[in-house]
């Protein structure tokens, strides 16, 4: 460290000698805010981890770090939304759903206000352990009336998340994952409310997945193809409202379904798909891949996806199981 640097500059230098992570969500939000003066951003002291640092610096009048006080943030957002603003609230998934559920239901969902709840660290995918893992957030938020839920399967869908949140008039929950490394240049992809995306075609079964499990499902489909099984892979980025048409059509055309999610098997994507099928009286070989009603632990994402049976290996295994039933 040179003597000419102040201590603060030195520390800044130390911090910056590590490559910064991308900001594919945060930049899209900032761009939207430049176009729509109603957009404001709130954050409960997790600015960089929620990609809102550039927003803070470029639009300081429209940014509020409210401190480590999530409940107050949601209540404030309700007030702002009642005053014609569109507040995007940021924290980790665990804190911005579970810790503030009552504030969300009463101050955002019941009055059906455009309060946008943006969480990072979905499911098990964090070193930070059980307190920071949101493995039941989709189940909880799905049960809240008026609430929409969207989850991207990669940074190419991050800009679309902002658009979906704005297209939905009421409260919406975005379940975001910050890329852990800087991806190559990404080609932004669009999404629609209530629409899944067929990411791979196949006639033998359908794997319906979301978020981090989509790439695992695609990998599983590749393995299965080698074995002569062609899996359709659906990216259900719109978890609520869900794409009923695509679920029913997939059931009819492929005859077997596996769901795969970085979430508890209770109440999330798997449950949502099962509800659609049962409501229409469709019975077929079916298996949910997800966290088996247990608490997890911190670790690197590949380690955790493997340990808790959320990876391509686990999905392929479930697919073989439903194929067996389909044949038998």
């Amino acid at each position, binding site marked *: *460290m040179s003597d000419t640097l102040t*201590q*603060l500059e*030195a*520390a800044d230098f*130390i*911090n910056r*000698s*590590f490559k910064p992570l991308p900001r594919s969500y945060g930049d899209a939000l900032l761009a939207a805010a430049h176009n729509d003066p109603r957009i404001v951003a709130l954050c409960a*002291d*997790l*600015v960089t*981890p929620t990609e809102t640092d550039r927003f803070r610096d470029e639009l300081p009048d429209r940014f509020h*770090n*409210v*401190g*480590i*006080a999530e*409940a*107050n943030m949601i209540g404030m957002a309700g007030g702002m939304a009642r005053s014609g603003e569109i507040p995007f609230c940021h924290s980790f998934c*665990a*804190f911005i759903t579970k*810790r503030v559920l009552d504030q969300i239901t009463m101050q955002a969902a019941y009055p059906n206000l455009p309060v946008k709840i943006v969480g990072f660290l979905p499911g098990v995918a964090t*070193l*930070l*352990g*059980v*307190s*920071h893992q949101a493995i039941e957030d989709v189940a909880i938020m799905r049960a809240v009336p008026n609430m929409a839920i969207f989850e991207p399967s990669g940074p190419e869908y991050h800009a679309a998340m902002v658009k979906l949140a704005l297209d939905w008039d009421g409260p919406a929950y975005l379940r975001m994952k910050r890329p852990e490394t800087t991806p190559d240049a990404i080609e932004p992809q669009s999404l629609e409310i209530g629409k899944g995306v067929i990411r791979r075609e196949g006639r033998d079964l359908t794997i319906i997945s979301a978020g981090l499990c989509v790439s695992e499902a695609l990998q599983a489909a590749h393995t299965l193809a080698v074995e002569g099984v062609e899996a359709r892979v659906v990216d259900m980025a719109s978890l609520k409202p869900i794409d009923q048409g695509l679920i029913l059509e997939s059931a009819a055309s492929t005859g077997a379904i596996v769901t795969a999610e970085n979430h508890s098997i209770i109440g999330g994507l798997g449950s949502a798909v099962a509800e659609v099928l049962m409501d229409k009286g469709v019975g077929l070989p079916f298996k949910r891949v997800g966290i088996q009603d247990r608490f997890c*632990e*911190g*670790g*690197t994402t590949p*380690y955790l996806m493997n340990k808790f049976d959320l990876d391509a290996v686990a999905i392929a295994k479930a697919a073989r199981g439903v194929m067996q039933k389909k044949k038998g």
Partner: protein
Amino acid sequence: MNAKHNVKDLESIATRLRLHVVDMVAPSGQGYVQQGLGAADIFTSLYFAEATMDPTNPEWPDRDRIFLTTAHNTAIFYATLAERGFFPVDDLKTYVTDGSTLEINSSERMGPFVEATCGSLGQGLSVAIGCAIAAKRQGRASRFYVIVGDGEMQEGQIWEAAMLAGARGLDNLCFIVDYNFVQSEGPMDLVMSLDPLMDKMESFGFACQEVDGNDLSALLSAYDVARETKGKPSFIKANTLMGKGVESLEGLMFHQLRFPPEVASSARAELEAQL
């Protein structure tokens, strides 16, 4: 307890703990080096002098209980537990590696010496108050020490808990704030300062003291005063210096200071020279 403890010995324990902090955080860059170095004297004074406990019987019901509610400050916490004999010092090498129970946020799956799982900030003080009320009813002499972060004090639950502790006059409770003046965003006044903190806590019914949180004798005296205070919970504002003990890191106000290997080795050398 002041008279009974050789402060020089405690100082060298604190330095040893600081060395562990550097060694634990350096390999992965994961962990909180500035907070760990800053809080080393709080941990040393509580675990090696003030609190009564038995590492061979961590569930001993009459133990004094220490709650670390900033559960992310684990480099110093685990170093302390290991040096105090709760688990082998060698286990520190597994810090934040896949499969290790030595996670970045402490959880009670490690053992009963993690008194509650507190990674979600703002919850631990309430749990400590519950334990303190139960101990009173059960006639136990245990004392309850809660190490809270200054940023964490922005959580509303802290103030609900503090209001109750004051109203009930819980004199077996000692609320220590690790006042390093940094939260995730940086220095606290960038976000929201707690001032006037002493007045606030006083008005909530606490017996308040402000000490240099890097002065072991001052900390020990403050615990003495707290123990002798009857009819009120105690609050100790322990002013700590981030990076304390490593000159090049002292006062660097970063929540998560990234830590390249060359900085780690010079920090190590500096601490070793103090032993």
